């Protein structure tokens, strides 16, 4: 009996299981650092599903022998966990490209394949177990090379097709981000990540194709190594989701009279008053028109131009509007705008209440020290 492989897998499993639990709790507790709670929860779900659920069922199906049916059942659960982990990871990858702007077609295929897989797994002959030793009478540890599984044609085709689709999707997103990005070095980790993750997936495809236990063991070892790297990245660099998908060009604050209180340009990281005056004009104009034609409660949320989205946040009680010009409006930008606006209101409470009366003279120089606040809240976009 080969104890080295057996022990290595068990030790590896306990390490991955503990790491998975710790990282999941860490991400969940710090989910706000991941841009939005949704991204935080999805990241935690990926880590938990891969490191805890998949790893557990995998180990139970290849290291122990309980009974033929139960071992097959564990393997079926591990395949399901693997599918779900890959779908969630794919969703996260899509967020790299454009937050919450997911192309639905890949996910429609994934869902269909997941449904087909579950239907296939419900049939009795979908997976067969082959034990290269005499059938044990009780629960025992077993040399993983002695326990092998054969997939029927339906399950084999579905799992291979699904994994090929996933690899193509990861690589496609990573390449697209890399091509479109002006700062190639910033997007390189995504590309590397996609390539590294493709290796265990390819090994799993090879296992299903050739039914050789060596590919299965290699798959889990490479997967767990990639998993450790991924966990470190998730903990060390939670902001990676923030920066890659979008850019902020400038932040402007306008008084309700239309006077610009402050403007900050992200391109040259300076206070700027010239480039944004055009938007001031447009905004005043639009509000005039809309106040006539529309219900006054229905304020502008976003203005789309050929090159940018102008996101508007009104603070009616304080008499100003915060305008952020970005390449694409998303929840991360909106959350940061909300935080910024709250701090701005707090910091300039007196000044803002003084100019609530539009007949008062506005001294815009009172707001000139906003640079620090912007750089604090929007530091990831600098």
């Amino acid at each position: 009996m080969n104890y080295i492989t057996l022990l290595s897998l068990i030790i590896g499993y306990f390490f991955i299981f503990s790491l998975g639990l710790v990282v999941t709790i860490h991400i969940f507790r710090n989910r706000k650092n991941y841009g939005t709670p949704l991204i935080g929860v999805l990241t935690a779900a990926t880590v938990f599903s891969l490191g805890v659920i998949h790893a557990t069922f995998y180990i139970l199906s290849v290291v122990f022998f309980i009974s033929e049916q139960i071992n097959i059942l564990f393997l079926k659960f591990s395949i399901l966990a693997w599918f779900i982990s890959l779908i969630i990871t794919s969703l996260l990858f899509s967020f790299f490209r454009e937050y919450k702007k997911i192309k639905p077609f890949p996910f429609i295929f994934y869902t269909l394949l997941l449904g087909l897989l579950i239907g296939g797994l419900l049939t009795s002959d979908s997976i067969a177990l082959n034990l290269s030793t005499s059938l044990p009478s009780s629960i025992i540890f077993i040399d993983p090379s002695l326990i092998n599984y054969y997939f029927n044609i339906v399950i084999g085709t579905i799992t291979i097709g699904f994994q090929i689709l996933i690899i193509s999707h990861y690589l496609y997103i990573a390449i697209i981000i890399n091509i479109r990005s002006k700062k190639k070095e910033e997007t390189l980790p995504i590309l590397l990540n996609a390539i590294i993750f493709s290796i265990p997936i390819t090994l799993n495809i090879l296992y299903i194709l050739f039914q050789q236990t060596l590919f299965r063991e290699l798959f889990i070892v490479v997967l767990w190594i990639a998993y450790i790297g991924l966990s470190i990245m998730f903990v060390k660099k939670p902001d990676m989701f923030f920066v890659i998908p979008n850019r902020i060009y400038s932040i402007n604050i306008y008084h309700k009279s239309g006077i610009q209180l402050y403007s900050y340009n992200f391109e040259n990281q300076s206070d700027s008053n010239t480039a944004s005056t055009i938007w001031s004009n447009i905004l005043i104009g639009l509000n005039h028109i809309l106040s006539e034609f529309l219900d006054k409660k229905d304020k502008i949320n976003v203005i789309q131009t050929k090159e940018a989205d102008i996101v508007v946040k009104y603070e009616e009680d304080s008499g100003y509007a915060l305008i952020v010009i970005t390449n694409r409006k998303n929840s991360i930008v909106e959350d940061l705008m909300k935080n910024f606006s709250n701090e701005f209101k707090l910091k300039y409470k007196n000044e803002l209440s003084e100019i609530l009366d539009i007949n008062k003279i506005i001294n815009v120089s009172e707001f000139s020290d906003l640079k620090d606040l912007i750089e604090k809240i929007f530091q990831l976009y600098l």
Partner: protein
Amino acid sequence: MIASLFISFFVIIFVFGIVYVLLNRRKYEVEVGFLIIFIIYFINEITYFISFNLSAENFFNIPLALIIWYISIITRHFSVGMFAIIHNFELNKDSRVRFLPVLIYIFIGGISLSLLFVPDSFTVIQKDFEYFYLFNNIGLLTSIILFNFCIVLFSWIIQIKGYHKFADKKLGKFYYIFMLLFSLNIFLYSLYLITLNIYFNLLHSIVYLIGIGYFVFIIIKKPNLFAVFTNKIYDLIIFHKSGILLYSFNFQTREEVDESLLKGSILIGISHILANLSNLEAQVTHIKMKDRAVVFNFNTQLGYAALLIAKHRNKILEKSIDNFMNEFSTINKDSLKNLTGLIDVSTFKNAKGLINQYFSHFFTEK
């Protein structure tokens, strides 16, 4: 015999509908992508109904009849699923979970499809002149019933929640009746699969034909079905770059808005926006609000812009504005080029004819 009768009725209704739509195609405005989906949907419906009825005929031998039965189940899943998906996307546009029902349908449909290929899923029973298909695979029957149940449940939730979004309320009411027929049809189909009772089969086919006939009736009665499902235009306003209002039309009252009724704030606003007309990069194309959208279309050569206030922007709307602007520019080219001195905006009253021509789909009933 009964099968051929049903199929004949079905073909008559379909051919009538298709011929009518082809003869009156100018009345119908539809996005190409949507049209393709609709054609695929109808192909599935046709295949389903014909194969469902033929599979019961003992004219075919058992293996062939079984293949036809399989085709009917697969196409049934596709057609019912596609209809529910289209319905969901139109009425559930702004929802954060608009993809959730779709993914649930696809997921359960995938399970059914997978279980369908398990060998010996059916036992074919021959009674009199008909075949009946008894489910040996309970998992398959359960997944089909679950699929149908989810379709009906989610479609009703979406219909009730989204009723207020129907731009044309009469169309919304038509849709309620169609949803009733659709649900009844699914219910009878499910009962037939469970009980294999011939009466449920007959009732299902009759309700199915009534449903299809009613759908053809809606298409004939409401040619704007595809353009205004949930969309609505409120106003169309045309400005010159000098800030002068050239023309304004209200879609609710279906009347031109007299310029003296427009307040000064609008004119101030327009001059602010048109001051940037020459700056192509900063040109505003679209403004989104919670319940409305403002679409801008500029003509920098002739120095004017059209502003359209609608419920939401879509390709049909954009195409209509483009066509309107092109035609407006052609017929008013000389007037727009010579806008100096005392300006007579009554020249641009011809815009009303163009509105009737390009936006007639958007005249909705309250």
